[in-house]
């Protein structure tokens, strides 16, 4: 008798072994950045949003004083070396994560509205939210890079059933929305990320074959687009949406192929392809963040979102001696023992994130560190998870954004400032000309 079981293999057994992406080959990549063409390169800013599920123990997060020189708190502790590189922003809210007349489903609404500022439609299949801030940025910043944006996630298990009340799992598993109906599913398998960034490492072929192959690919995609357009015009507008999304996606793939042939992102050194999803969370996170840092440095993309877990994640943290599911714990009823466990999980997440910041700090981008060139937002759409509170959210921004940010402070905005004001402030600093975003009421003063 054969016991076959799909997917368990990847999650439970395979260990990623491809963490051998080291520094040596990076220098080899610098010439590939593409701005050595003539004029002095204008420094590029990178934007990244890191989202954590199931809220935050705010009393272990929020610094007690505002302004510069605040004392570090337990959950922020792993970021202590970067006090002068961080902005802790208190008092932001995600108003559209509230029911506003809809039913339960605060988790789904939190992840769906955090970057979009939109109130997601309560539906199991007819999903609708808004365009997310990262995608607005990508529309401009992404023009120059092979990948307009990159979406990563650290939770790889298959979704089963309904994810949060009447809401489709699409809401809890994506924070990036290309259009109000097109969430971008994060890549969770390091091997897939590797292949997306660096291409499939197949048998080496000569330049002529490669060029011909690229030409064929281009025209296969052209044909597919023509097909899709024809088909779309033959059916009603409601049925057409998916085809339009396909069309947009193919166009994006084509653009990527053109970009890569122009920019020559040739990567040398012994890059090893990861074989799968590491069983260990920290190892998984490290590998994903490592590749992200690499992608930023090599200018393969300038915009990324990371979901540390799906919203309402039920992951358990055996490695911390915590067998209960994260979501189960997040309804803590202010029980000190439960809060302690939650704080440990949240600090653990922050530790993985801090390693990413280390990584960015250690990488050079011309005269500055990569961190100086970046704006990295870490936050959640829920503060107190026990009651699903969507105001006074935990948000911290790392990096100097090429001088656009003046970090090293804790700012408290009270309680009624939409988090979209922050998004708008960052978008404007990235040169996106936009006067409002989502439910923004103004530009956040930073």
């Amino acid at each position, binding site marked *: 008798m054969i016991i076959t079981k799909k997917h368990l293999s990847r999650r439970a057994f395979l260990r990623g072994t491809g963490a051998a992406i080291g520094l040596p080959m990076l220098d080899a990549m610098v010439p590939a950045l593409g701005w050595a063409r003539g004029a002095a390169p204008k420094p590029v800013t990178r934007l990244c949003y890191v989202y954590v599920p199931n809220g935050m123990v705010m009393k272990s997060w929020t610094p007690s004083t505002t302004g510069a020189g605040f004392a570090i708190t337990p959950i922020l502790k792993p970021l202590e070396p970067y006090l002068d590189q961080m902005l802790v922003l208190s008092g932001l809210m995600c108003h559209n994560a509230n029911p506003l007349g809809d*039913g339960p489903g605060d988790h789904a609404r939190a992840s769906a509205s955090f970057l979009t500022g939109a109130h997601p439609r309560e539906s199991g299949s007819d999903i609708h939210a808004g365009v997310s801030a990262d995608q607005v940025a990508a529309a401009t910043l992404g023009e120059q890079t092979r990948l307009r944006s990159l979406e990563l996630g650290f939770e790889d298990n298959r979704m089963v059933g309904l994810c949060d009340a009447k809401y489709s799992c699409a809401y809890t598993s994506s924070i990036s929305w290309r259009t109000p109906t097109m969430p971008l599913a994060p890549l969770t398998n390091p091997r897939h990320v590797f292949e997306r960034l660096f291409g499939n490492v197949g048998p080496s072929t000569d330049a002529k074959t490669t060029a011909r192959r690229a030409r064929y690919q281009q025209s296969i995609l052209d044909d597919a687009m023509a097909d899709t357009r024809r088909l779309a015009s033959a059916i009603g507008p409601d049925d057409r949406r998916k085809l339009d999304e396909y069309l947009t996606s193919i166009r994006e793939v084509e653009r990527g192929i053109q970009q890569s042939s122009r920019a020559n992102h040739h990567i040398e050194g012994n890059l090893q392809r990861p074989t799968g999803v590491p069983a260990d969370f920290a190892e998984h996170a490290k590998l994903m963040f490592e590749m992200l840092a690499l992608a930023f440095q090599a200018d393969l993309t300038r915009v990324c979102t990371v979901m540390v877990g799906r919203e309402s994640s039920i992951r358990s943290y055996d490695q911390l001696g915590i067998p209960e599911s994260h979501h189960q714990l997040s309804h803590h009823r202010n029980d000190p023992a439960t809060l302690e466990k939650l704080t440990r999980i949240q600090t653990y997440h922050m530790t993985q994130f801090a390693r990413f910041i280390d990584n960015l700090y250690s990488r050079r981008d011309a005269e500055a560190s990569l961190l100086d060139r970046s704006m990295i937002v870490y936050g959640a759409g829920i503060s107190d998870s026990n009651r699903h509170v969507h105001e006074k959210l935990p948000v911290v921004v790392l990096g100097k954004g090429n001088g656009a940010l003046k970090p090293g402070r804790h700012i408290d905005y009270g309680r009624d400032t939409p988090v979209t004001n922050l998004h708008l402030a960052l978008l404007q600093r990235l040169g996106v000309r936009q006067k409002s975003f989502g439910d923004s009421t103004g530009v956040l003063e930073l």
Partner: protein
Amino acid sequence: MLPGKCWVRYSLLVAMLLPLIWGTRLVRAGQAAVAKDESQWQGYRQTVQPFLAKHCFECHTDKNSGDVRLDGIKDESSLTAHAVVLEKALAMLRKRAMPPKKRPQPADVEIKPVVAWLEMYAARLDQLAARQAGRRMTRRLNRAEYNNTVRDLLGVDFRPADDFPADVPGHGFDTVAGALTISPALAEKYLVAAEKVAHTALFGVEPMKPERTYHQPFFTADAFSKNKSVKLDYDETGMSLPSALHVVQRFPADGEYTLRAIMRGVRPPGSNPIELGFWIDGVMMHQASLPVPTKLQSGRAPGEINGLWAEFRTPIKAGEHWLSVTVLRMYEGLPPAYQGPKPANTTLGVSRATDAFFPMYLNVVGPFEQVIGPSRKSLEKVFGTRSAPTSRDSASPRRIVSELARRAFRRTVSAQEIDDLVKWIARAQTDGDSFEEGLCLAIERMLVSPHFLFRVEKDSGGDHGASISSFELASRLSYFLWSSMPDDELLTCAEAQTLAKPDVLEAQVRRMLADSKAQALVENFGGQWLQTRALESHTPDRIKFPEFTDYTRMSMQKESELFFDHILRQDRPILDFLDANYTFLNQRLAEFYQIPGVEGHEFRKVDLTGTHRGGVLAQASVLAVSSYANRTSPVLRGKCVLENLLNDPPPPPPPEVPALDEKPLGQTASMRMQLEEHRKNPNCASCHARLDPLGFALEHFDAIGRWREQDGKVPIDSSGTLPDGRSFKSFEEMRACLKAKPDAFTECLAEKMLTYALGRGLERADRDAVKRIARKVAQDGYRFSRLVLEIVRSQPFLMQNVRAETP
């Protein structure tokens, strides 16, 4: 009585959302129809509103009452907008579940006119919905469907879509169109997969360098140290022992692979050599012998075997395989002092065990001697078997391409489409490439076409309720039952326009159910309906439940699959899902269930008479996924029963309700006492009165599905009373209660399966179809095939989903 609250959730939800979904077209139509008759609002204001104000407004006006707000109805349009809530209120009034028992109860004469009016209003909305409900949506293939389709189209079975981003379920199933999203990352995967699939079909797997795959399954020392004694009749193959290593690996190519197992642990010095068994797909392929060191040797203490290894090389076919490394005859050959079960010939039936050693790692390296070239199966799929093998010459490209395109696009193809594909062959040949290379490009081209990747149902331009085309029907059938493309016979029926004929349709459905491809229905529908798919990533507390090894997990899932498969293949009554006196077990699960007489790792049908098991509710898979990692949850399990078997899902708890106090559980208080405390809160009582009894009945099963008499220090009490007044003393009696009202279950399963088959959430207009299906199923002895047949014959399945009229 309404079939269940599910309707409220799906159909009325849709009614409420339609304005958002379709711009404003439908709601305008809807409002127009209602607005013609001003008496709706007048009637409501006269008959219903005073009653609600008197009995309901005290609670149902603010945030605390969850999603049920009754105070916002102020005119005709807000009445329409509150249809969902009103139908909820109707359901509660009918059941007399509201107002709560502690509140003043309205008299019958008060309730009657209110219920009558609400029923009239609901029926009115039904009529309206029936005229304009439903919508077609273009649906992409999900991952399982893509894998199966390229397998059946080109004989390529390396499951390329496993590399696609995960599909997101909607309404509980990953066939639901709206939830199947598309992204640039996916489009890129489509392109990569198309090249690889086409290339593999025509030229075989690319030559690869050998790669090393490391397996280190999770183990816990507790699984061993707890094992202080061992039964005489222990599993000598080692397959079901905690020491066994079990993994699943996907092999990229036919070829030879080296399997190396590395040991860890200690065996008493003086024991016989360790005998290791290497198994592939449950068949022992190799035995190796590892001597136990008797003295200090290269840093190892006597008896220590850390790092000792054994390996062998063997041909393995591409695809997924189950690999095991086990210790054979684990307790034999110990020194006499250890009184191993047989050496010491003890009469006690048990003896001291020394099992603190096991294969810890498995490294697989390969492929070596890779088999190069296309598979015979692929060549047949591409070039066909009907004509002579010489058909590959240049005269036949058109025939080959058009035949492939017909299957890839699942319909007849136009001459223009064939021209567009054939040109790729000419183009490659102009570039100096071979015919096959050109054909490869043409196939790639097909595989990124929306006609392949999507299922698009075209508007036939007919009236409401027009039948779908016969090709569309063929695809609906094959993706429903096989999660794959229609085969030749289905396409031929479609071409002949005979498929929709009742006798042809029935014959085709029966043929399809008998085909091995119907396994897809077991895996994809069964695994999602009962959510046993979640078992793959379910991680119970490893300290508390060391017995929950990967082998246990695999076995649990296999039991549920075999059980579903049996009901399908033997055409058993679907009521077997609720209660059956048989199941399928291997030794591990049988021990788990305390059922004697099952030896070895092979699954077999086992009679359950006289045991506590029988039906899906007593299967470890279902019990485990409806538990928390560290304890059972009567609430989760109650929800599981209501949602998956009775179609009566409770709403999620309103925010800010106190959660359960878990601290004293199993110590000074039972789950029951804690939940009874919880139910004192009237906000909680109305739902928990439905949830808790069902969950309590299952309390004898622990968080990984084993039978228990006590929860910690507290004895289990599995009695309870259902909301309809029937009470039970045990799980078996509760199960009998469910079985005594088979309609609720039948309608539930019909609705779930129809949702899966249609790939959309059900709506008001589908309500009658579900009832009709359930009725027919009951009339035919609840046979499984009848359920499938009636779904296929139902109006929603056969008819084009009509669109709303544009005003």
